[in-house]
């Protein structure tokens, strides 16, 4: 068995156990969240002008979807459903499997967050190297300060700033959802352009808020590597600067790859505020919606999906490290 296969098998086994534990914990948390959704629904219907009797009956029909039985019976049902990828029935979206609702929402989270994260990683890493090399100059200072500033601003504040500037004061970019409905969906310039236009501000928010972290982390990593003996040896040997630069980058970037993989794991759960601000119907928004409406099945499903993605990201990060760092690989082989 190769090193990677052995590690993968171990990770998968541990991951499965963790998923079961998390599913159990989230089931009990979700089902013990305080609040009476039936009363809230009834009140809303009555406020809208429905007579009390009709509201009572309508609420009864809607909440007939809720699972019944003791908590233990519900738990057993939930876990056995989970084995068949059946996450239950959504009260707010009856008839649509929870998994379908989550999958629909996930695409509106994954693409912008992925794009923003990768963009910030790319720019942050490159500028981080420059900030380290030029750390005694003005450029280095400017990059470090910009990194610290952006790293310090909470993501949702940055999002609101962008909305105020680009959607309200200088209204050149939309902040009202993922695409303009007037364009026929499909592979046409108008639709794709509208998708891109609507994605600019959310992606920019993700990218700008993560950029600072990458710059600072990369700068710090490069500075550490710069002090290593092999760099001194390379310089003494008179190696080309570009080759030395590659040595530095390859060694300094290793810890950042781990952070990147873990960040990607948080893709699904890290966008709650941003999706609300930009009206993006992704998983974060769905999570808020399901909590507000006490849609237990949807809530549980969303929590589970976020957890699974973090666990999978951890596994990928570890395996990836095995691949890109020969020291880890050889260390395993010599055991």
């Amino acid at each position, binding site marked *: 068995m190769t090193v990677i296969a052995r590690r993968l098998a171990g990770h998968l086994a541990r991951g499965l156990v963790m998923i079961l534990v998390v599913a159990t914990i989230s089931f009990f948390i979700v089902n013990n969240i305080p*609040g*009476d*959704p039936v*009363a*809230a629904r009834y*009140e809303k*219907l*009555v406020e*809208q*002008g429905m*007579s*009390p*009797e*009709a509201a*009572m*009956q*309508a609420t*009864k*029909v*809607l909440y*007939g*979807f809720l699972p019944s039985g003791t908590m233990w019976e519900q738990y057993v049902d939930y876990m056995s459903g989970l084995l068949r990828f059946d996450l239950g029935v959504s*009260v707010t*979206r*009856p*008839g*649509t499997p929870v998994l379908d609702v989550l999958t629909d*929402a996930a695409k509106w989270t994954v693409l912008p967050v992925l794009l923003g994260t990768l963009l910030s990683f*790319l720019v942050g890493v490159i500028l981080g190297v420059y900030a380290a090399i030029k750390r005694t100059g003005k450029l280095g200072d400017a990059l470090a300060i910009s990194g610290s500033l952006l790293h310090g601003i909470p993501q949702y504040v940055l999002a609101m700033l962008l*909305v105020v500037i680009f*959607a*309200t004061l200088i209204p050149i970019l939309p902040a*009202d*959802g*993922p*695409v303009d*409905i*007037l*364009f*026929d*969906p499909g592979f046409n*310039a*108008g*639709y794709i*352009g*509208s998708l*891109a*236009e*609507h*994605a*600019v501000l959310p992606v920019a928010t993700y990218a700008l808020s993560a950029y600072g972290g990458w710059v600072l982390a990369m700068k710090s990593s490069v500075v550490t590597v710069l002090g290593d003996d092999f760099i001194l040896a390379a310089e003494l040997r008179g190696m080309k600067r570009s080759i030395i630069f590659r040595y530095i980058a390859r060694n300094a970037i290793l810890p950042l790859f781990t952070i990147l993989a873990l960040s990607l794991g948080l893709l699904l759960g890290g966008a709650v505020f941003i*999706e*609300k601000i930009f*009206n993006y*119907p992704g998983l974060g*928004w769905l999570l*808020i*919606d399901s909590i*507000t409406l*006490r849609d237990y099945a949807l809530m549980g499903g969303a929590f589970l999906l976020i957890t699974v993605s973090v666990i999978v990201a951890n596994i990928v990060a570890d395996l990836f490290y095995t691949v890109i760092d020969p020291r880890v690989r050889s260390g395993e082989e010599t055991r």
Partner: protein
Amino acid sequence: MKRLAAVVALLGLATMTACSSTDNKSAGGGGSTGGGLFTTIDVNRPGIDASAPANPYNPKGNAFPGYTTMKIGWVVNHLTDPNKALPGMAASWEIAPDNSAITLKLQPNAKWSDGKPVTAEDVKLSIALAYTQGSTAFAVTPGAAGAAAEVTVVDDKTIKITQDPANPSPKFARGVLDTTVLPAHVWSNAVPATIWDTIKTARGDGPDAEKAREEITALGEKVIAFAPPKDVAGGPFVLERVNPGEALLVKNKYFFNAANVAPDQVKFLNYTGNEQIWNYLTQGKLDHSGFVAAPTDVMNRIKAAPGSEVIKGYSPVAVSMAFNQSKKPYDNVHVRRGLAFLIDREQVTKVASPEGGTAATTTTGIHQKAADAWISETLPKLEPYKVDPAKAEEEFKTAGLTKKDGKWTLADGTPWKVSMHAPAGFSDWLSAQENIKSQLIKAGIEAEVVTTADYPVYLEELAAGKYDVGFWLIALGPAPYDIFQRLYGASNGWANVSGKVKHSPAGEAGNWMGSPEQIEVDGAKINPGELTGKLNSVGPDEAKPIMSQLAMAANQDLPVIQLWDYINNQFVNNSRFTGWPHDDEVLRLGTGVLPSGVWIQQGLVKKKQ
């Protein structure tokens, strides 16, 4: 560097594409022509869900009452007549003088968006669907007030519905008219062909009836989840497509009044909170929006948007400060009265809801406008509870409270703290409570405002009797029973099951208000819950004296202090469309109905020339 340059070039290209899309919008997807594009939101349902079916019974369904889905009639916001309505799928109707039946005449030219005619069979199937969902008129609950007994198709365009004489209700016609009409050729798949047999059995007694009722409930779940292959609409528009951010409706050329429908397309925008609606309104993006609460500065910005107008009208809702009478000292009517004399409702309303409310003139349990219409002769007899600290002090002393070092304490000498609860996000309620708190503190009463996580938690804890004082919506008209059951209904111990009123003691069966079962009003002992129950079966003439008694009971016993009566605010923009109605009655139209859809289909809204 080459790689960096390539990345920069790609980003530039993406930005160019993005910016160019704005210019090509109309070319890309059939932008508006002729009558133009009407933009709005559904304030009742945040979050458009692209995967939801075009089903009006589905909580996230992409059905838009007034735009795509039609009701038999559009019940209006009348002060006293719950049965008044505008024509919908029915062009006219006749209510029997004894309220025993209603005969509907359908629009002669009504067609579905697929060109098929609308017939009485469509209405009959729609009534069967309504039975599965719970409806005032179409209920299988034994003894339900105002339930229908027979549904008879008279001819292709006429249908007669008779009321069950067992427990008749004055709002029977309202229940019938407020029914959604759906195409039988699409929706007949949602229920079995034997549905009417099941309904008939379910309306009876015994085990078979019980089994049939269970079947109906199970069918209800099926109907809620039913997904028509495509939208077949009866309204002026039909659903073209939905994406996760917006819904697009296009004009239904078969709509019976299509010639007078101004817009060609309607765009429903998505939103996740009030802030987005405020942004849309300040940017002048919406042609119409229902009311959303907004702070004064936001409201001023909305009003300042070009073409913006706020139409104000009657809203049969009031907000009150409700007491849990199981908790001391609120079990003592003098304490409640003292507080009523102390709290300046004008000030509270000015702070909490300057645009959306009018300070209550006194506590009656009815919105002031409806009270003027129903019980004008009783109103002068009521205590107005004008601000009067001396009277408040007198009431507190009568209740046994004492004032030490400028602070009021309970009869046993322990400190008195008025603890008020409101759910997070209810900004007007929270502002009101903060204002009341400062007023009370000024008068020597300790007070605090406690925010609850959200509305479901608030309702759960309120019902469990955990709060001393909370805010509670009352006066939910227009039907007299609906108005008073907020004060003397289940939350105060009186459950009305099949016309029989039963009282549960405080702390049981959801009775968190805990008023006494009987009180003395005008020298006579009354049971407010039973009187309220009567309102569900009597006509307007009999209702009036009962309403007077109940208003007097509420006024002297103060289970709540009525703080302000809501105002119906509708946001419209005159830049693209005009002709907005300013008539109180048509600013609110039935359960979940989008009023602008009804205004458009009635031909009121015109394209701006």
